[in-house]
């Protein structure tokens, strides 16, 4: 039974009658999230075997497991709405589905990993806190679990960054700062193109699956994360981002044509990601069939 809520939207459980647009939109959101979790974990997974201590390796492995777990719970939501999980990665390989711009890059250094993760995790938290207000409740519950674990990852990223800034040498600390400047514009773009003027015509907003606009989320994110970097002692170049007297954050606008090109597969690690997924599926399909072929 769908129930009315104050904002005027009804909220739905899996078995509730719901408009096709809501069902299709929820399926699309969950599918996109599952794909981005499963492919988006690869840039971090590449560094697991280089994690330089026993404890750090455990922490990083736990994060990687969590991210795949996020892909799993999102895929379960999508499956219940009619999207077979096999198709999620297959559509990506076939070019029918894309991943966010930030997952088309790799981390070049260990020092880049901390600030990159910190920027990404904090942006994801802001985004998930918004999406969990959406009208499809199984997805909202999945996001609540995911968002909680992203908070753990945020703390891990903070610890990783802090360790290098506190105990690393001058060159290593410089690379942390460079990592921040490299990843800030990418994560600004990850939150999507400006939409303040168009949000209220967006169908996903109208049906209650996208409660907040990209610009609002970007402001909320900058409000949270820039003070964190300042407290860590990272210089924040005002040419990249600065706070106006009104409190609003001003930033160098991403080159959206470039972002579009990256998302279409033109990023430095785009092909590498596709190759990894293709090889993994090719290598392991018969084992998956074996698992399912035997009770």
């Amino acid at each position, binding site marked *: *039974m769908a*129930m009315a*809520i104050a904002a005027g939207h009804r*909220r739905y*459980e899996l078995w509730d009658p719901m408009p096709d647009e809501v069902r299709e939109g929820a399926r699309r959101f969950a599918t996109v999230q599952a794909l981005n979790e*499963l492919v988006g*974990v*690869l840039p971090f*997974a590449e560094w*697991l*075997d*280089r*994690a*330089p*201590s*026993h*404890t*750090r*390796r*455990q*922490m990083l*492995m*736990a994060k*990687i*497991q969590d991210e*795949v*777990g996020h*892909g*799993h719970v999102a*895929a379960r939501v999508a499956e219940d709405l009619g999207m077979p*999980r096999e198709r999620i*990665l297959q559509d990506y390989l076939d070019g029918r589905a894309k991943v966010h711009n930030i997952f088309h890059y790799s981390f070049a250094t*260990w020092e880049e990993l901390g600030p990159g993760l910190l920027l990404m995790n904090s942006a994801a938290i802001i985004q998930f806190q918004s999406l969990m207000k959406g009208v499809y*409740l199984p997805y909202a519950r999945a996001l609540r679990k995911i968002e909680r674990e992203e*908070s*753990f990852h945020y*703390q*891990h990223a*903070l*610890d990783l960054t*802090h*360790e290098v800034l506190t*105990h*690393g*040498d001058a060159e*290593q600390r410089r690379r942390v700062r460079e990592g921040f400047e490299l990843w800030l514009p990418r994560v600004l773009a990850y939150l999507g193109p400006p939409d303040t003027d168009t949000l209220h015509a967006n169908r996903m907003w109208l049906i209650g699956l996208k409660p907040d606009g990209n610009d609002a989320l970007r402001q909320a994110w900058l409000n949270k994360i820039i003070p964190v970097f300042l407290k860590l002692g990272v210089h924040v170049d005002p040419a990249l981002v600065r706070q106006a007297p009104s409190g609003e954050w001003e930033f160098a606008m991403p080159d959206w044509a470039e972002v579009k090109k990256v998302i279409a597969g033109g990023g430095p690690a785009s092909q590498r990601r596709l190759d*990894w*997924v293709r090889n*993994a*599926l090719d*290598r*392991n399909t*018969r*084992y*998956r*069939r*074996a*698992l399912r*072929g*035997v009770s």
Partner: protein
Amino acid sequence: MPHVPTDPDVYEVFAQNGLGKTLGHVGSIVSPCPDAAWHLAKETYGRRDDLATLWVVRRADMTVSGGDDGDLLAAKTRMPHRQPGFPTARRRDRSAAASSPAAVILPTAAVPPAAVAPPATAPPATAALPATAASPATVAPPRFRDSAPPERRDDARGAGGSELSDLWLLLADDLFVLGNRLGERIVDYIDLEESLAVGSIGQEALAHAGTILVLSGFDQPAADAWFFDRPQGRWRVSRAIERLTDWPSTVACGLVIAAAVTVLAERTVAVEPGEGWLPAITAVRDEQLVHLDHWRRWARALAAFPETRAEFARAYAEVTERAGDMFGARPQGGSALAVTLHERFAALVGENGGPGSRMPDRPLARTAGVGGSALAYCLSRGRMVRDDYAPGVFQ
């Protein structure tokens, strides 16, 4: 262990008092059929409330935890690195230690490639390695073990005898390499549920390796030096590690290592080990038994499926043959203890329901420097970042 209850007419009831609230267990009812059960549940648990959701589940269709599953369910306590506050506590402890006059950061470069001997009193068992600088009890630098052969080393440390202790250190190495390999498998996407399973088994393998070192008296810098700074020529992993490559071999390696750790844990518990060992090794044994079940399920599946049967039979034969050195701590490989452990190990491996094992009749000696490309890759990758930093930076 988790079990399936058998009360056929009992239904467990789950209700949600409003959208946005949690669906929770509210009780149970007895009903002759599912349809009636739902209505009975509504009258029993919802007659004074506006429920948003009501579910009934036949108790016999549920798999539920038992009273002795508490340790398996205690994810936070047995895996401290998964706790939300772990990174913050780490930073706080490190800052406090840095400002303490007693603080000692061991220079990693000064750790010799030989094994590290523990302090005389082993610290309490925990899966978390104690940081030297943060733990007053372990601030003193550890004694360094000389490079004498194992039988001449100082008698250790509470496992119930030096041979048992040496075997634990050898299995810690196997667990460390296996844990790392399973970590890579998380994103191999054999199946999403399997990704999560190998993620947990991999973390537990690393945690067990760390626990063994803690029990053996290592503190955190010494443990990191043990795992990250020893040259390959000083490792004495089982030769099974050389086959830690494709998925069928990984399944076989996982199975033999879980079986070996289980056997050694059973023996250690039986000989009334020193303080700290019993609860830690009991927990290790219980978790490795779960791993063993996992790998056995896979072994049966791969052995039964036509497309994978021959491939798995080949991998299993090679791995079990190489795993004959699991309990070969001594150069001659055939002490009475080793023979006893090996016989139990061979029996446990033989119970998997898959293809035939090629386990040798008697234990073979482990040799230094084996491990092949699997170990070489693990070690070289592990040093890439570490070697760029000053000693003591990473904890």
